[in-house]
């Protein structure tokens, strides 16, 4: 899977073509040879591309890379490579109870459209109150318990309208 790089609202693909004797990368539909690279994640860098030396500064945050090259700052998304930091491990259609407990309060109702991370209900188990949040954007199909209702471990508390093919 090639690296996907977002720059100026465009997505450009980049990939390694070969590694020896010199690193060769493809950017879009063109290939380039990288002959020298002293390029830390953050700090000043020096890299030689197709025989020409570029120097500047680089700084990486979790989401973006900032670069200062030839008196101009560029901010692009961190290159997401094949497998690098794949964080979205899927999203369930149901929120189940990890422990038996009772519903303390409800913040959603059947049919509500909710955003990922939005708190849907608060439950209490073993004297501990826990806020349960939406695992993904979606529509609530059913809230299975009322406030103050007890539930068992593994009970489905909230179910989402399943995603249609093509939503994902």
């Amino acid at each position: 899977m090639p690296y996907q790089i977002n720059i100026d609202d465009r997505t450009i693909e980049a990939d390694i073509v070969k590694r020896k004797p010199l690193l060769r990368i493809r950017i879009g539909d063109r290939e380039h040879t990288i002959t020298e690279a002293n390029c830390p994640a953050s700090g000043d860098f020096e890299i030689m591309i197709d025989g020409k030396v570029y120097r500047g500064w680089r700084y990486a945050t979790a989401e973006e890379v900032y670069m200062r090259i030839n008196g101009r700052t560029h901010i692009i998304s961190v290159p997401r490579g094949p497998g690098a930091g794949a964080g979205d491990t899927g999203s369930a259609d149901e929120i189940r109870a990890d422990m038996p407990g009772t519903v303390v309060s409800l913040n959603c109702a059947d049919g509500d459209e909710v955003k990922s991370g939005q708190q849907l209900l608060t439950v209490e188990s073993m004297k501990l109150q826990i806020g349960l949040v939406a695992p993904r954007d979606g529509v609530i199909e059913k809230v299975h318990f009322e406030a103050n209702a007890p539930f068992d471990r593994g009970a489905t508390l909230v179910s989402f309208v399943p995603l249609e093919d093509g939503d994902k």
Partner: protein
Amino acid sequence: MLKKVLIANRGEIACRVIKTLKDMGIGSVAVFHHEDRAAPHVQMADESVQLTGEVPTAAYLDQEQIIAACKKTGADGVHPGYGFLSENAGFAETIAKAGIAFIGPNTDAIKLMGDKIESREFAAKHGIPIAPSARQTGSLEDFIKEAEKIGFPLLIKASAGGGGKGMKIVNKKDELEESIRVAASEAERYFSDGRVYAEKLVVEPRHIEVQVLGDGKGDVVHLFERECSIQRRYQKVVEESPAPNMQAKLRDEICESAVRLTKAANYKNAGTVEFILGADGKFYFLEMNTRLQVEHPVTEMVVGVDLVAEQIKIASGMGLSFKQSDLKQTGHAIEVRICAERPEKDYQPATGRVGVMHLPTGEGIRFDGGIKEGQAVTPAFDSMLAKLICYGTTRADAVSKMEEALGDFVLLGVPTNIDFLGRVMGNDVFKSGKLHTGFLTDHAEGLMPPALTGEEETAVISTALLGDADFRVSAFEVPEPYASIGSWQN
């Protein structure tokens, strides 16, 4: 002379004040919210006191805590900087009552100039030109009739407002009533004061302001004008002194008006009188700011005066250290405000972290900043991070120096307007000095970042990849002979 001054502010202005205090051998006390605990102003000051608050800005606005901090550290003066409590008459009064010197004007002047309507009337009374205007005294119908007399286009503003909130431009008569209603309701919402007034709208206006100093006993000098016409969302981004292409006669008139107003107010300490200047050479009083301005450094560089030092001397009861005839403008200075924002996305404020910073240096380059590497840029405070000021013998000299300095300025980790400002400096119309407050809107398209060349794109993407740990593993840690064989398949 004051012995120890507490700076009731943060960021670049706190650092700026501390620097002068150090030069003068006066002790300095910084105050800070937890979020600023490692900020440069805290490190620079001799002492520091932590303030608490629900939100960070609330801490810096908490008068009781600030007075307690003065008592605790034995500070005998308070410098309010700009923003926060700098134009809060109540604060100035409380400070004074506590026996601490407020480094700023007396309470009456703050109150007078703090009210847009009163200050205009005061100016008019003393012969300072004000834009034809009308204010609502009775019914809305009467006000509409009064406003009509000003002629169009006109501007509706909130009496208690500023920063463009509640402001409406009215081009035709039939838009008037609706605009007034909307402006009034906005004013009510923002300032809990629904009063509005109407004034003549000057087309392609320039923002000219005059720096003044008064000793509170009637002695007032001006330190010439500044031009602050390069604005976005009614906020200044580029300021300079002197104003380009300004005839000496007009300059004298404007400065003289400012001094007349200041004297009439029996003004003490530093202040700025702001005017609107039309293309016809007519100028109108806008307002007076009873504090040190963000853009004061351009005056300092051109006139050769440390304004903070003068403020402290005045607050210490020492009077002015020079006469008007001692002052003259030499050369040209430009200041740009470095802000955490995305100019290409309608100046949307941005947050992040000052990850890598590399400052431009050289003769005539001044950096007023309160930031350092590693510092977080949060939405808690204003988006202005620092100011860069360049001095040259001529305006062209100062502009090209600024363009170069911005090119050398590295600040990575938060989006900034550095490159945008660089493009402003390179703009031909800007270079010609034909400025007005609509400049950035008129030239918005030409000031957008140019598209990347193929070579730039290659350099950017290569650098992004080569500095990425995952990419490096993939590029350099494939075992042999696989790396040498490359993309072969049987």
